């Protein structure tokens, strides 16, 4: 839309209206961000007292930390598997939510629950379900004939991380499915009809007509999801606390442990700065994808 050139007001006129938002964002989002960066260059003793500047010492200690490389590898797996599987499963799920059938509302409302409910509680429930003695999972697996002996999926280091991945995918699905559902709903009915040619053509029609139209929703969901998944703390913390040892830590829970467990605030801050920069890359992608400039014009 080409609008007639609008005379812009000076910023001070807008300031009273924006002040509440600016105070909160500057005071409680940007200030802690600055504090985090500063802390990563400071020498902090074990009780949290600042002893002075440390230059790059915290970063050096972080790089020398032998526990870090496996955590970083696991973080990449965490991100790729959870985001990838979430997207792959969300597409059929969104299609199902969009289909007309008896019980469609039940499905839509059920999928909302893991999104609305506290992550701590959902994770606690899974922890209980997976309890080796009293949990429901062993009971179900035995009744289905899949296992004969009780298993401790969460306690066993070879399976605990896989369990965490599954739970993380479970709680990421609702948001992504709803984003894709919104994308599907924005496709005009005639286009959907045109793509629905019977037989083998229907599949081809889906990938050549529907999927390209869904791509913006898909990319936005991927980027936002990546940020959520990277920051995901409650699922891991409630179910394994990143343990045993650092076996199931991602860089987010690892940073927490280094700060509040080992009391090495400086080193933890340097890792958190790294985490922040990773998220910042995702934000740049998000800005590229989102249409915020268009809304600026209206």
């Amino acid at each position, binding site marked *: 839309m080409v609008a007639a050139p609008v005379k812009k007001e000076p910023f001070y006129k807008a300031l009273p209206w924006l002040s509440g938002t600016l105070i909160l964002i500057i005071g409680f989002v940007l200030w802690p961000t600055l504090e985090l960066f500063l802390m990563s260059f400071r020498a902090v003793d074990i009780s949290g007292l600042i002893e002075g500047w440390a230059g790059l010492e915290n970063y050096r200690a972080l790089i020398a930390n032998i526990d870090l490389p496996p955590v970083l590898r696991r973080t990449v797996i965490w991100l790729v598997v959870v985001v990838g599987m979430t997207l792959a499963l969300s597409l059929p799920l969104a299609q199902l939510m969009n289909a007309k059938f008896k019980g469609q509302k*039940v*499905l839509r409302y059920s*999928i909302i629950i893991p999104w609305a409910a506290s992550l701590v509680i*959902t994770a606690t429930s899974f922890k209980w379900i997976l309890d080796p003695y*009293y949990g429901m999972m062993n009971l179900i697996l035995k009744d289905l004939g899949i296992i004969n002996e009780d298993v401790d999926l969460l306690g066993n280091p070879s399976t605990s991380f896989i369990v965490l991945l599954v739970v993380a995918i479970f709680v990421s699905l609702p948001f992504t499915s709803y984003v894709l559902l919104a994308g599907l709903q924005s496709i005009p009915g005639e286009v959907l009809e045109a793509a629905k040619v019977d037989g083998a053509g229907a599949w081809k029609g889906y990938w050549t007509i529907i999927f390209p139209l869904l791509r913006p929703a898909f990319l936005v969901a991927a980027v936002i999801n990546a940020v959520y998944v990277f920051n995901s*703390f409650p699922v891991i913390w409630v179910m394994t606390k990143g343990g045993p040892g650092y076996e199931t830590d991602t860089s987010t829970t690892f940073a927490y442990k280094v700060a509040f467990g080992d009391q090495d605030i400086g080193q933890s801050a340097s890792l958190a700065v790294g985490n922040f920069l990773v998220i910042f890359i995702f934000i740049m992608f998000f800005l590229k994808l989102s249409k915020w400039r268009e809304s600026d014009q209206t």
Partner: protein
Amino acid sequence: MSVPALIVKRRIKGFILSVVGLATAVIFLFPYITMLSTALKPKSDITDIPPTYLPKEYIWSNFIKVFSEIAFGTYMKNTIFIALATMIIGLIASIPAGYYVARHHFRGRTFFLLVVLITQMFSPTTLLIGIFREMSVLDLINTYTGLILVNAAFNLAFAVWILSSFFRSIPKEIEEAAQIDGCTKFQAFRIVALPLALPGIVTTAIFIFIAAWNEFVVAYTLASQPAKQPFSVGLSLLTGYYEVKWNYLFAGSLIAIIPVVLLFIFIEKYLVSGLTAGSVK
């Protein structure tokens, strides 16, 4: 294909979709159904080996006893207070901003929107050390104020975004007419625009309320005193004990989940557009 054959085919398709759809629904409900079953069990059933799917005896009074057996009353009181206060502060900060951004072109508007959008993606989890440090400096550790301000700040972006899109959808002419009738700019906002944007304000209020209600990591870090902890922190710490009172833990969990799920369903229509900054719908 004949017409009856087509009808039969459509019915079969509908039936299959219903079966698949409801089976999927059960998967998503599974953790919460298990929670309910456990919440209704007597203490003796919890430690049955092997466990049972359903309680042998349904103890509905667990939902009352949760207030005396664990400190659930305190957790709920804290949660409600923090969530309500966060909601009010969030609205006070975001309504004028959302309105002004929707209605006016001013220098710095693009930059303001950019900052809002970028900070939407910032997460308290990454910034925890910075938040902790700031709260120590301000002496706000173990206070409601600290939690409320942090919660309000991190949910502002969504609020401003949703509100400005609601204000934009109200025709400018209505306010202009009010101004011709003698209203000041502020009166036009208060008397005309504000009531018309009520659905947007309610949506925003609910969103902020739920986000603050469920918030975990900041409260976990800042509120070490049980008297200041919301349910997310309080309940998470219960599983650390040797003997976990799972039935009470889950009775409390369900009380904490149900209201927000209902509210969430209420605002679902607007969530996607708010969380993706309008890039999907």
